[in-house]
């Protein structure tokens, strides 16, 4: 019985010795966790052949509002920190064109305007990055409140000439890269 007591005491002591320690943990670090992924995707693609431009008499040959709820979805609007909207304009027509992109809120108020003046073909592709948020960017509230996009196009040339390039057209491409806070 004495031996048994000794063994039990040894076992309990061993368990006690190894079970009594834990290095210092700081669970308040949880508050410092920052999860801010950056997501990107295309926004809007508009394409018009030169034949359409020639058919429409007048300077403004195209203007349309596009409902666009991606930015104003709660998940984005409440979490977006900053972002970059990238535009690319490609003109293979024979005309000088102005393209205007406007961000509008749900009341139709223009929040932001970006205008592209592009020469007749042959011209390089015009690419432009617009930053929102951060120190130097435009207000991030523009992104948060945008619920539609208006694209307008003006023909600064004539309505008869045709580009010598194959399948001449004006193309507007755009994408957005947004950093959002999950935690």
């Amino acid at each position: 019985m004495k031996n048994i007591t000794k063994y039990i005491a040894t076992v309990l002591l061993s368990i006690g010795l190894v079970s009594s320690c834990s290095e210092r943990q700081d669970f308040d670090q949880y508050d410092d966790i920052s999860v801010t992924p950056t997501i990107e995707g295309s926004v809007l693609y508009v394409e018009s052949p030169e034949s359409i431009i020639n058919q429409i008499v007048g300077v403004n040959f195209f203007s349309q509002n596009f409902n666009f709820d991606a930015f104003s979805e709660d998940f984005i609007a409440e979490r977006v920190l900053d972002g970059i909207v990238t535009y690319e304009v490609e003109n293979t027509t024979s005309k000088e064109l102005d393209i205007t992109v406007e961000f509008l809120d749900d009341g139709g108020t223009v929040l932001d305007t970006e205008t592209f003046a592009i020469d007749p073909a042959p011209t390089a592709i015009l690419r432009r990055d617009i930053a929102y948020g951060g120190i130097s960017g435009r207000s991030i509230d523009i992104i948060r409140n945008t619920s539609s996009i208006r694209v307008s196009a003006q023909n600064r040339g004539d309505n008869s000439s045709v580009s010598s390039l194959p399948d001449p057209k004006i193309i507007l491409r755009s994408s957005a890269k947004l950093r959002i806070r999950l935690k």
Partner: protein
Amino acid sequence: MRNLKIVLIALFWGYTTLYAQNKQLLYDFTEIPQALMVNPGMQTTYQWYAGIPALSGISFQAGSSGITVHDIFADDGIDINDKIRDRAIFGMKITDELSGTYQIELLSGGFRAKYKPTDFYSFGIYHEGDAIAYWPKDLAILAYEGNADMLGRRFNLSHLKTRGEVLNVFHFGVNRQMNDKLTLGGRAKIYSGITDFNSTSNDGYFVTNPGQNNLLANTLVADMQLRTSGIEGIRDVLNDDTVDDVSGIRKILTKRGFFGGDLGLGFDLGFSYHLNEQTVFTGSLIDVGFIYHSGDTRNFTLKGNATIEGMEVILPEALADPDADFWQNLVDDVQDLVPFEEDSNGYITFRPTKLYSSIRYNFGKQVQSRADCNCSYKVSAKRSSTIQYTNSVGGQLYAINRPRGPQMALSAFYLRRLGNVMALKTTYTIDKFSQTNIGLGFSLQAGPVNLYAMADNLLAYNNIADSHYASFQLGLNIISWGKN
């Protein structure tokens, strides 16, 4: 916010400390009746035993092959975001397993057949919870980093692989000494499933590439499924303000745990074989069975593929409908191409089957077995199965069937008997989670009262927060070697 913090830390702990259910300390510990639950073919000498209800068998195991709480929350001056990024998000592998289990015996007993004393019957009810999650690496990277500046990088959806269940098990086992060398055992089980979730057959990917028309193309190819059972009823109670949450949930769990939920069948098999007088070879197969989930099932699927390049407005076609909502059309197209659907179809899950095997060499002085005093079943007291030695040494193999395939562990053990009052067992276990797992357990027989306790991975207890694995088992029984 504080509650959310606690929940997230608990989930994190859960994710990072869960483990498989290896009971290497209990296995073939013949002094403890609960060892029959991991080998129904174990050698038994008891005349009868009765577990103290709810106290006869309590076990909990948790572990991680990836990171520990210490890895993230250590007060070491390193930015926690660097630790999360380096050690969790990019440090863990998809094979890192996060799983765990607990068991509580509600009722347990056994008795030797009066007219066929080579047979020993055992029965009982136990409650069990079991869960596993593999580290969903690509999904974690996508959530942490996003998809920006990762052109062509496929985020693999199959990394999501998880399952878990809570159930009651009703069982009845027969253990028969076939001859001087061989003991066989089997156990029939009825599973009464309480809750279940599983999402183990996911496939597909998400990728961002340069677009054909627009600047970027986001492609989702998905074949994902989440199946649940027994969760909707609980959710209904939580959403119903007229029902008290605690009593409502208790009522549901009690009903479903006692044949009012999902039902299943299964069995265990086991044997012990004396290669010679001092060497014993054992093996068992536990939880070969299935559960059919029905009644309160809810399944979710996401299946299809879609590539989007934002809203596309191509003239002159786009002028045909001046009222067209291009954004809504895009959303509708994606939902049509990759529909998120729900149904309440029944489904079958298979239990995580476990395999044990061991070889044991007994040596030292012979210990007088308690059975020697009352061999009412007229079998020679000198038969191999009733002869016990002061020392036993051997090795054990353990394997469990998991969603990513079998997972194995190898143990060496030493068992020391101190008369027929106490037995100590220590194990050293190696597996993909730990190479320093030393466990210790004892069984104390004070008259008819049997008390056992065991704990695992003791070396890690000097810094429990840095432990990849912790477990304990304990129980209290009344055992008799006398008449029924």
